[in-house]
C-alpha cells in the first residue's frame, strides 16, 4: 500500500558537472506538469567540476512559497550525498542511489527507517555510453516510485533535448524508461502523488528569468552586461532571446562599460538595462550618479550575493540594501525595488521600467541569489501591462519645438525629453551640473534649482504602485516585517502559525525608494509588537525604517550565514515573541 501524499520534498545530491541541476529541474517541471505547485532551490559552490551540489524540489497540491519539511526522497548520485543529508530525511523516506554503493551504504540504512532503492545508475548509463544518463535513470526511478506517468516525463525530455541530436534524445528517453521500469519491477511503490489538470497562467519561474520576461514585455532594446554570479543567467537568457525579440545584448569589457553603454543607449532613446551583483554594482556607482544628474532613465538589476569583496559568489545575502540606496556621490533621485518572489519580480520589473521613464532617473531592482535562482510556480498575466514612456517626445512633437530646454524647471520637476535624430531638440547630456539647456553651470542659484527639480520628480509616481503588501489580519497584535526574498519563507511560516491559532500581521516591503512612509509608520504604530527578518548582520531595513519613520522595530532576527531563512527558524522566532507577550 503506498502512502498518498499532498506534499513531497525531493532532494538531488551529487558532484558539480554531473548534470544534477538539469535533473532537479526536470523533476520540478514534472511536478509542475502534473498540476502541483512547485518550489525548487539549488545549493552549489563556486566551481565547475566536483564539489557538492544539491537541488531540492518541493511540490504541493496547494500554493507554496518556499521549501518546508523533511526530505521524502533523496536521490544520491554519490556516497557523500547520503552521508551529508541523511539527517534531513523524514520518517518513512526513500533513498535512490547507485547499486554499486549498496555494500557501503547498507549499514547506514539499517538503523534508520529508510526504504533503500538501489538502481544500477552507473552500470546502465555506461551501457548507454555516458555516465550523464545516470540523472535520467534516477528521474525515471523517482517517477516510478510516486505512481507517476512516464509519458509526462518523456514529453519534458523531448522539449528539453529537442535542439540536440536525435541520438541524445533517444538515450535520455531510454535511460528514463529504464529507471522507471526497473523500480516498478523490483520495488513497491512507497508514495502516490495526485496528478491534476495544469492550471492556466501558472508558470515555473525563477526570479532572474522573471526579470528578463518582464523587461522584454516592457520593450527593453539594449542589454549590456559583464558576467557575474548570480546575475549571469540574465545575460545568457537575454542573449539567447536577442534575435527573437530584436534586442542587442552586449557582453562588455567590464561593468563600467556595461552601465555606460546603457546610459548612451537610453540617452539615444531606447529602453536599456544591465544586470550584475554587488561587486559589479560597486563599479557602476559613478555612472549611476551620471544617470541621475543627466536624467537618463535606465534599469540596473543587482542580484545580491554574499559579500563583501568576492565574498561567497554562489550564496545568498540581503546586505546590499543600504548600499544601493546610497550608492554614488552627491544626491539624486533613484528607484529601489525589492521583489519578494518571481511573480513580483515580473510585475514590479514591468512597473519599474515605466516609473524610470516617467521620472527620467535610474532604477535598481534588487534581487538575491535565492530569489534569482529558485523556481516557484507563480501566476503571470500579461493582459493589462501598458508601456508608458513619460515625456519622451515624438519626432512629430519635436518638429515644431522652439527653444527646447531639456532640463526645464517644471512644477513636477519632469522635463520633456528629446532624443538624437529629432530636429529642434539639440542638447548636451552632461555629467556636469548644468542649467536648463544642459550647458555646464556652476551658478549657485541654478544649482539649487536643479537639485530641487530632480528631487521633486519622485512625487510623480503614483503611491499605490509602491505600497508594502500586507498579509494576515490588520488587528493582529504582532507585526512581522521583511523585504525582498524573505517573503516566501515567512508566508510558509505563517501557515504553521495560522494552524496554531497565532494571529500575525505581515508587512512585506517592496520599495525602499519611493518609500511608503505613512503606511509603514501606521502599521508599526498599530502593532503592539513588531519583529523584522533580514538576511544581513546589521538590520539594514530596520535602520532605514527608523530613519524614515522615527520608529525602531524592537525585535530583529538576522541571518547572515549566506543561506536563506528556514521556515522552522522563522516559526520559532515568532512564537517566542508571541509567547513573551
Amino acid at each position: 500500500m503506498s502512502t498518498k501524499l499532498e506534499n513531497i520534498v525531493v532532494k538531488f545530491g551529487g558532484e558539480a558537472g554531473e548534470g544534477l541541476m538539469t535533473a532537479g529541474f526536470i523533476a520540478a517541471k514534472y511536478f509542475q506538469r502534473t498540476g502541483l505547485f512547485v518550489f525548487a532551490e539549488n545549493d552549489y559552490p563556486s566551481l565547475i567540476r566536483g564539489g557538492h551540489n544539491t537541488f531540492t524540489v518541493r511540490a504541493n497540491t496547494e500554493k507554496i512559497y518556499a521549501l518546508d519539511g523533511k526530505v521524502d526522497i533523496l536521490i544520491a548520485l554519490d556516497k557523500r550525498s547520503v552521508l551529508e543529508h541523511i539527517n534531513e530525511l523524514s520518517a518513512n523516506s526513500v533513498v535512490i542511489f547507485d547499486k554499486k554503493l549498496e555494500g557501503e551504504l547498507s549499514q547506514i540504512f539499517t538503523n534508520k527507517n529508510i526504504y533503500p532503492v538501489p538502481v544500477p545508475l552507473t552500470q546502465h548509463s555506461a551501457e548507454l555510453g555516458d555516465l550523464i544518463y545516470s540523472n535520467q535513470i534516477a528521474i525515471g526511478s523517482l517517477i516510478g516510485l510516486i505512481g507517476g506517468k512516464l509519458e509526462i516525463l518523456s514529453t519534458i525530455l523531448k522539449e528539453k533535448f529537442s535542439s540536440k541530436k536525435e541520438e541524445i534524445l533517444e538515450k535520455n528517453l531510454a535511460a528514463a524508461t529504464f529507471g522507471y521500469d526497473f523500480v516498478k519491477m523490483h520495488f513497491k511503490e512507497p508514495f502516490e502523488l495526485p496528478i491534476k489538470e495544469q492550471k492556466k497562467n501558472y508558470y515555473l519561474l525563477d526570479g532572474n528569468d522573471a526579470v528578463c520576461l518582464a523587461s522584454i514585455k516592457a520593450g527593453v532594446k539594449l542589454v549590456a552586461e559583464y558576467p557575474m554570479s548570480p546575475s549571469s543567467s540574465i545575460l545568457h537568457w537575454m542573449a539567447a532571446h536577442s534575435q527573437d525579440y530584436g534586442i542587442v545584448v552586449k557582453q562588455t569589457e567590464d561593468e563600467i562599460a556595461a552601465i555606460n553603454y546603457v546610459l548612451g543607449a537610453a540617452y539615444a532613446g531606447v529602453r536599456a538595462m544591465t544586470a550584475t551583483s554587488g561587486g559589479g554594482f560597486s563599479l557602476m556607482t559613478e555612472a549611476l550618479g551620471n544617470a541621475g544628474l543627466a536624467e537618463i532613465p535606465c534599469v540596473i538589476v543587482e542580484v545580491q550575493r554574499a559579500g563583501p569583496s568576492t565574498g561567497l559568489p554562489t550564496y545568498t545575502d540581503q546586505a546590499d540594501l543600504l548600499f544601493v540606496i546610497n550608492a554614488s556621490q552627491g544626491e539624486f533621485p533613484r528607484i529601489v525595488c525589492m521583489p519578494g518572489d518571481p511573480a513580483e519580480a515580473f510585475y514590479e520589473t514591468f512597473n519599474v521600467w515605466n516609473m524610470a521613464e516617467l521620472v527620467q532617473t535610474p532604477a535598481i531592482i534588487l534581487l538575491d541569489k535565492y530569489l534569482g535562482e529558485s523556481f516557484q510556480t507563480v501566476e503571470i498575466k500579461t493582459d493589462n501591462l501598458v508601456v508608458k514612456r513619460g515625456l519622451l517626445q515624438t519626432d512629430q512633437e519635436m518638429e515644431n519645438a522652439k527653444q527646447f530646454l531639456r532640463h526645464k524647471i517644471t512644477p513636477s520637476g519632469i522635463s520633456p525629453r528629446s532624443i538624437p535624430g529629432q530636429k529642434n531638440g539639440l542638447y548636451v547630456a552632461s555629467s556636469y551640473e548644468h542649467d536648463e539647456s544642459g550647458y555646464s553651470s556652476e551658478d549657485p542659484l541654478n544649482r539649487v534649482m536643479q537639485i530641487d527639480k530632480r528631487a521633486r520628480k519622485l512625487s510623480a509616481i503614483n503611491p499605490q504602485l509602491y505600497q508594502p503588501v500586507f498579509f494576515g489580519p490588520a488587528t493582529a497584535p504582532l507585526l512581522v516585517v521583511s523585504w525582498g526574498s524573505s517573503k516566501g519563507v515567512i508566508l510558509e511560516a505563517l501557515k504553521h502559525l495560522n494552524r496554531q491559532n497565532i494571529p500575525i500581521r505581515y508587512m512585506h516591503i517592496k520599495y525602499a525608494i519611493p518609500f511608503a512612509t505613512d503606511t509603514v509608520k501606521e502599521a508599526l504604530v498599530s502593532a503592539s509588537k513588531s519583529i523584522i527578518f533580514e538576511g544581513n548582520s546589521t538590520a539594514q531595513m530596520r535602520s532605514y525604517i527608523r530613519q524614515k519613520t522615527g520608529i525602531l522595530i524592537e525585535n530583529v532576527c538576522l541571518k547572515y550565514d549566506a543561506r536563506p531563512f528556514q521556515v522552522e527558524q522563522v516559526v520559532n522566532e515568532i512564537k517566542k515573541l508571541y509567547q513573551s507577550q
Partner: protein
Amino acid sequence: MVELSQLHEPTHTITWCPGCGNFSILAALKKAIVDCNLEPHNTVIVSGIGCGGKIPHFIKTYGFESLHGRALAAASGIKLANHKLEVIVVGGDGDGYGIGANHFIHASRRNYDMTYIVQNNQIYGLTTGQASPTSEKSMKTKSTPFGVIEQPINPIALALAAGATFIARGFSGDLTHLSNLISQGIKHKGFAFIDVFQPCVIWNHINTFEYFRKKCYKLEQTDYKPNDKFEAFRKAFETDKLPIGVFYQEQRPTYEDELPQLSTSPLVKQPIDNIDIQKTLEKYL
C-alpha cells in the same frame, strides 16, 4: 547643406586657455562636419572629462559629455541604439589612454562605425599638470617631480594591435591637414581613430608647437601606403621624426553590420508598445 554658422554656439563661452591646441581641433572638427555635410540633429558628439571634453558644448549638434574615461562606452551604447546617427567621440590622453584605455582597446576590436579623436597633450591639464600615459620618460610634472619612470603608451601601435580599421595621427598646429584626417575618419566605415598632437601651453613645456613643427612630417608626402599592418607598426615606432597622416586603413564589417537585429531599422525606431511574450512564457508551463 550644413553651414559653419549653424554649428556655432554663440552663448557658450569657450573656457580653454589662450593659445590652447584645442581651438584648432574644434575648428578642424567643425570644418570636417561641414565638409562631410553631417546634419547637426543626426550627429552626436560624445566626450569624456578633461579640457578637451568640453567640446560638445561648443558645437551645435547633439552631445553627450560622459564621465571621465567613459566616452567610448557611452558612444557605443548610442551607436547600438541608433546606428543611423553619426557618432564622433572626443577626449584627452588621460581619458582615453589612462582611465578609459580598456574601452579604447575593445571599441577598436569591435569596429563600431564611429570616429574617435584623442586630444593628446601628453599631460593632465584640467587637474593642473600631472603626468599622463603619453608623458615622455623623465618628464617632470607635479606628480612626477623626479621625472616619469615608465615608458609612454604608443597609441598608434595600441590601436593597430587592438584592431581599429582606420588609424591616423594629426597635429593641431596644422588645421587643414587635421580637418582632412577627421573627414576621412568620418567617411571611413568602421572604427576610425585619430591621435592628435595637441600642445598644452600651460603645463607641457617639452611637447610644444615649436617641437612638433620641427619633428612632424606627412606620410602622404612619402611613398608610404597605409595598407600594411606590419609597416604601420614600424611607422608607429618612429621617434626621431614624427609621422602624421593615415598609418593604416582596412575594410572590415562593422559590429552593427553583423547584427541581424539592426538590419531593418535602428533599435530606437522599433515599436515597443505591444510586445507579445506569450510564446516564450509558455516554455515555463
